[in-house]
Every structure is written in structure tokens, then in C-alpha cells.
């Protein structure tokens, strides 16, 4: 969950969720749910969330976002914090919201890690905004390189967010380190279309697994963009404003976009409901939908809103297909991470494809 998105609050009640316990139903139907932890010696016990997973060279690579806060979310507002029902509990003498990334290769049972470490973001410069680090990083392999792609907001004094692409490698000690970094510009086409100048924050672009340097930037209408590492320009390669799906809450970025069968892509999107209580205090829900695109980037299916584990704030940055299962890594309440193994048949029935 990103704090600055709260600026967009509109009054709205919590709407019913069509599938409030997706993970529970998956477990009942042959799937599996596994907790993912980072040793508290490395985190101080603060939140581990918004994970991503990718199958790279037949090995499951998982990135977990460690946030140096604990999210206080009184979902029923019965025991709200004095500062509101949704509060970031960071050290009282340090208001920054700091992100670290922990990357590793994990076994098929999601029980044993190897090559697991905090990513040494050695290209970092001194942050000048309160959101520090690469947030909501998706793992993707393009051109035989492993990347983390997410939003960074610590490079300007007013917190402008742009997607970045950090190439990571194992160093000589088997620890992950960043070896290159590129800040992805907004496509000119987008700027011309919206005609309002550059956006404040670009985030949650979904990398397309089989198309290097390509992201689904937005899902409704679908906008696909491609970055050229040579020219360092980004172009919109698909956008049809007429193909707009009329929903209460737009699709927002979630997992990577992964090829599905021969003619489709499948991804997880998130759905955000930002609202205020009657007394004007900010609250929110973060849910998901599965979405299926054809190769022309038409939305051909999307599911109803789902919660993985009935938490009001859930977020996923990764999904892959592995040995007959769709594997999803997600976080609840910004504090806890899980991996969900969804049998292919179950998910296909659920989506209706």
C-alpha cells in the first residue's frame, strides 16, 4: 500500500467482496498456502509484504519487500489508532518509510532458500524524500538478465515517483547486488494524451514476461509501453481509449503479465477503494482481480474482486506458472507474506477460461 495514494480519497463505503477467502478455497481444492518470512534479525520484525515471484531458469525466484514499519489497520475501526484506522507505525523519531528488498531462490515447497539476501542497492544515492528505496519490485528476466522493476520516489525533493529497472546479480559471495539502474521515462504519447503534464507518480507497471522492456502500464483502458535501453525512451505500443471497462474501481497494476496458453496473457490486478469515515478519517481496501488479455491487448476476461485471506489490505507483485500450479506471492496488511499455489484447473475454472 502506498501512502501518497491516500491523497485520492473519495467517500465510499466498503463494498462487498465477491470472493473474500480465495486462498482458503484454493487450499480446500488441492492448493497450498505457505508463510514466507525474513529473519527478524534482519528486519527488526517490521512488515514483509508485496512479494513477487518469477520462474527463471526453471528456478523460483522470490523477492519480498521489507518495509521498516508496521501497518496499523483497524479493519472494523473498533480499535482505531488515535491517528486513524490506517497508520504507519515507523520509529517516532524517523518518519521515513523505508523499503528493502530481499531476493532469493526458493525450492518447490517454498521451505528452503538459497542465494537469499538483502539486495545490495549499491547504486543508491542519499535519499531526499521520505519514501526510500525501490518499492513493489517485480522480478523479471529479460535478455538473460534478472531485473527488479518497481517505483522509486527518493530522488526528488517532492517525491516524484517513476518506474525503475534495477539489474541484479549474485556477487562473489552469493549475495544479490544491483549492477545497473535505469529510470523509465513516461511515454511522450501518454503525456500528449492526458495533456496535463507529467504525472506525479508512476507505479505498478506490470512487466510482460516474454516481451523485453515492456510493461502493461495501465489496465483500463489497457496501455502497453516499451522502453528502449539504448535511446532511453519509452513508447506506448498499445492504447485504445474506446476499450474502457466500466467498473466502480479501476484495474491497477499487480503481478507480472505472464503468457497463458498460446494466445493470451494472464495477470493479477489490484483494486483500490479509498474512502473516509463519516468523521473524515482515511481508510481503504486493496483487493485483486485476475485479468486475461489476448495478444492484441484486449481484455477478454476478468474475475470479480477477491481477497486472498479476507484482509482489507492485500497486495501482490508476482505470479508465475510452475509445475501445474499458478504460484502467487502476496502480502496482507503490509505486514505478512504468503505464497499461494493454485492448481491450474482450479484457476481456469475460477476465471472461466
Amino acid at each position, binding site marked *: 500500500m502506498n501512502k501518497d495514494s491516500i491523497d485520492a480519497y473519495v467517500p465510499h463505503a466498503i463494498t462487498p467482496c465477491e470472493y473474500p477467502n480465495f486462498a482458503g478455497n484454493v487450499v480446500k481444492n488441492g492448493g497450498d498456502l505457505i508463510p514466507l518470512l525474513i529473519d527478524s534479525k534482519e528486519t527488526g520484525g517490521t512488515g514483509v509484504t508485496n512479494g513477487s515471484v518469477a520462474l527463471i531458469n526453471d528456478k523460483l525466484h522470490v523477492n519480498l519487500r521489507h518495509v521498516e514499519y*508496521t501497518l496499523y489497520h483497524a479493519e*472494523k475501526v473498533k480499535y482505531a489508532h488515535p491517528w486513524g484506522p490506517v497508520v504507519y507505525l515507523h520509529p517516532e523519531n524517523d518518519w521515513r518509510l523505508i523499503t528493502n528488498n530481499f531476493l532469493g531462490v526458493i525450492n518447490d515447497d517454498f521451505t528452503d532458500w538459497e542465494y537469499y539476501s538483502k539486495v545490495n542497492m549499491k547504486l543508491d544515492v542519499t535519499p531526499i524524500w521520505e519514501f526510500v528505496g525501490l518499492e513493489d519490485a517485480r522480478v523479471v528476466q529479460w535478455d538473460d538478465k534478472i531485473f527488479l522493476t518497481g517505483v522509486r520516489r527518493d530522488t526528488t525533493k517532492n517525491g516524484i515517483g517513476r518506474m525503475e529497472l534495477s539489474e541484479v546479480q549474485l556477487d562473489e559471495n552469493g549475495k544479490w547486488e544491483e549492477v545497473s539502474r535505469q529510470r523509465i521515462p513516461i511515454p511522450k504519447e501518454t503525456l500528449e494524451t492526458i495533456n496535463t503534464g507529467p504525472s506525479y507518480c508512476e507505479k505498478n507497471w506490470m512487466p510482460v514476461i516474454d516481451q523485453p522492456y515492456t510493461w502493461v502500464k495501465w489496465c483500463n483502458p489497457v496501455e502497453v509501453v516499451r522502453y528502449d535501453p539504448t535511446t532511453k525512451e519509452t513508447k506506448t505500443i498499445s492504447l485504445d481509449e474506446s476499450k474502457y471497462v466500466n467498473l466502480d474501481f479501476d484495474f491497477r497494476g499487480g503481478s507480472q503479465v505472464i503468457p497463458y496458453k498460446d494466445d493470451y496473457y494472464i495477470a493479477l490486478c489490484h483494486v483500490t477503494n479509498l474512502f473516509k469515515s463519516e468523521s473524515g478519517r482515511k481508510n481503504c481496501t486493496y483487493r485483486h482481480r485476475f485479468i486475461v488479455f489476448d495478444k492484441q491487448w484486449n481484455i477478454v476476461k476478468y474475475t470479480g474482486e477477491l481477497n486472498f485471506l479476507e484482509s482489507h489490505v492485500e497486495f501482490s507483485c508476482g505470479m508465475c506458472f510452475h509445475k501445474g500450479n499458478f504460484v502467487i506471492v502476496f502480502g496482507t496488511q503490509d505486514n505478512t507474506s504468503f505464497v499461494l499455489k493454485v492448481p491450474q484447473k482450479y484457476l481456469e475454472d475460477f476465471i472461466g477460461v
Partner: protein
Amino acid sequence: MENKTLKETVIEYSKDPRNADLNFNMGYKYQELNQGASAFSHYLRAAEEGDDLLAYESLIRAQYSIVSQKDRGYTEKYLLKQCIVILPERPEAYYLMAKHYMKRNDHADAYFHFKMAEKLCDFTLPETQPLRTKIGYKNNIHFYIDFATCAWKWDKNEEARTILRMLMKDEIYNSADEEDKKYIRDSIEEVGILGGDTSYTYYKKDLYPKLKYTFEGCENIETNFSQVYQDMFILFMHKGKKNGTFVEVGCGPAVRGSNTYLLESKYNWKGISIDKDPEFAAEQQHRRKSTTIFDDALTIDYESLIAKHLPDVTEIDYLQLDLEPAKNTFECLLSIPFEKYKFGVITYEHDHYIDFTKSYRSKSRRYLTLMGYELVVADVSSEGSCTFEDWWVHPDLVDRDVIDKIKSLEGVVNIKEHMIK
């Protein structure tokens, strides 16, 4: 709590993720693994979905998950405040709040929460409606131990002592575990159970009309000096005798608090005063006429000592035995040459209220009875609860009429009530 793995706990939880009990179990399991943020989310949901008792426990545990992350003190306090609001009659949250403040040396706010709990809480609830897990509230005894410490640090010294005295009552002290017993003992040793002048009970001349036990010359006494009327008792038993003799082991202060200063200064008694404390010994030498011995009372040959300083005497009017701890006083008692000397009056300080063996009072009574002495006033205290002394006489040296008049062997004696109408 069931001994399940985190994975097993998660699978069970996935069946009903808003179930209060399952969320509590998740919180507990993550907390065991020092995963504070994860524990926090689940405890908070358990609180919101559960009944008041579960909410209370969940928020306390949620608070611990924040404590472990450090530097989030405002939220820690707030969570405990919520607990107090939920179940204001339970003591645990007040206690933890007080401890929160004590850690920060804010003894005034800590005291506030201890005191509120004392006034408002039902201290049977931790036993009759126990929580599921240990939440840092050991027991009511520990509550009061920390309360006493807090009160002491906020200069409420007498209140601290009052609490410690309460903890020393047999039924409470005996129910404490060894750790708490030691803590109580150490606290008492550190602060002293009787404190300053407030624990002393002095006779003043204006009380003369109410004085129950009169003796010759008592109408002229402006004030006495003993802690709890011992000097008035001695003079009553000896009917205001002049030129008496005493042996005073563990004499303490020369004047205020002395059992013999009144005897010496107004009734011309003489004797031997023994103390190993150099300050007391120096004060005795400076302000008193009697012989002062600066030595360890347990190493003295009393037969030689008495023979040297009170020659040709076999009957001595008063023996004081007042060492600490109770073991030492009894050991000293065994070294007194009773076969050679008779003592008219003995004040024996058994310190039963801080005798952690609870054995020396009965040992001393058996021994003195065997030596031919009669217990006249048992279990003397300054305030009616902390019994620290017995008063004895030898029936050969004290008249029966005064013995029978003052005798009290039933329960703890509040000395002022016993001596003054």
C-alpha cells in the same frame, strides 16, 4: 497454546480468516518467531472480532509486538489504554502501563497507574478469569512489589513500606514464589521496614492521664525514647526502680530510639551497651555514661564482659537483645550465660515479620521458657501487624501483680493501644 508449526497454523487459519481465535493463534505463532508486524495484524483482528476478554489479551500482546520494534512508545501506550477501557476492572493493563513508565523513569505516571489499579481493580480476576497466555503480569504479589518500588522512587516512602509490610504477612509471603520472596526480602533490606520517625511511637507527658501502667516517677517523664515503649515497660515491671542495671546488645542510637537512655538519665541505671556500628558506638561514648563496647555481639564472651563491668552482680534488671537478622539475635541469645545471671526483664527482637525462616520466634520462646523466663507481652508491633519483639520477665525478679496486669499473649500487639488508654 497448541504446539503447531507456523505452516499448520496458517492452513487452519485459511479456513476462516476472520475467526478471532484463529487470528489470535496466528499472532501468537508469529510472535514466537519475533515477527512483530505479522503478529500485530492478527492480534488486532482478533481484538476486533473477539469478545472483550480476547480483545483485552490480544491488544496487550499486540503491544508487545510493537515494543519489540522499538521507538514506537506512543502506540504501545495507546494499546494499553484501549485495554484499560475494555476491561477497567482487570489489573494487567494498568500494571503494564505502569511498567512502561517505570522503564522511562517516569515514576509519577507509573504511580498513577498502580494507584488506579489498586483503587479500581478486582485482583481476583487474573485467577478466576485467566487469560490464555502469559502477558507479563506474573501475579498480584509482583504487582505490589513493583508498586512499592515505584512508590519508593517517587518519594512515597511510607507507602512503599506499608506495601512491603503487607507483602510480609504470612499468608501473602508464604504464597510467593522464591523469586518474589527474594525480591521482597531484598526490598525490605534495602529500604528498611520501619522507616524513619513515623514508625516510632513515643510517649509524651500529656499522655500521662491515659497511661495504663504507671510506676513511681512516671508522672515526671516528659518523653520516653524507646521505639515502642520498651523503656516504659521496663520501668513498670520494676516499679520505677532507681539504680538498676542493664546489658544492652545491639544498642543502636544513644538517645532517640534507645531503650536505656530514660533508665540511665532519669532513674540512674548503669550498664553495658554493645554495638558493632561505629557511628552508634561513637554516639554512645559521647552522650552516655554507661560502658560502650564496640564489637561484634556474636564474638563476645558475655560472662567475662559482665563480670568485668558489672562486678559482684548476678541479677541484672534488663537485657536487650536486638541484632539483625533474626538468626543472629538467636545465636546471641544462646551465648548469654543464663546459668550465672538472671535478668529481670528481657526485650527480645525476633523480627518475625522479616524472618524468612519463620522459625526464630518459636526457637527463642522455647529457649527462654527453658531458661525460666515468662513471656509477658508477645508479638509487639508499632502498628498492629509487623511483629518484631517479645517481652519477657524472670518471675523471681518481677512481681506477679505487674506481670498479670500487663500480660498480653493473644495476637499482635499494637503497642500504643496496649500502653495508652
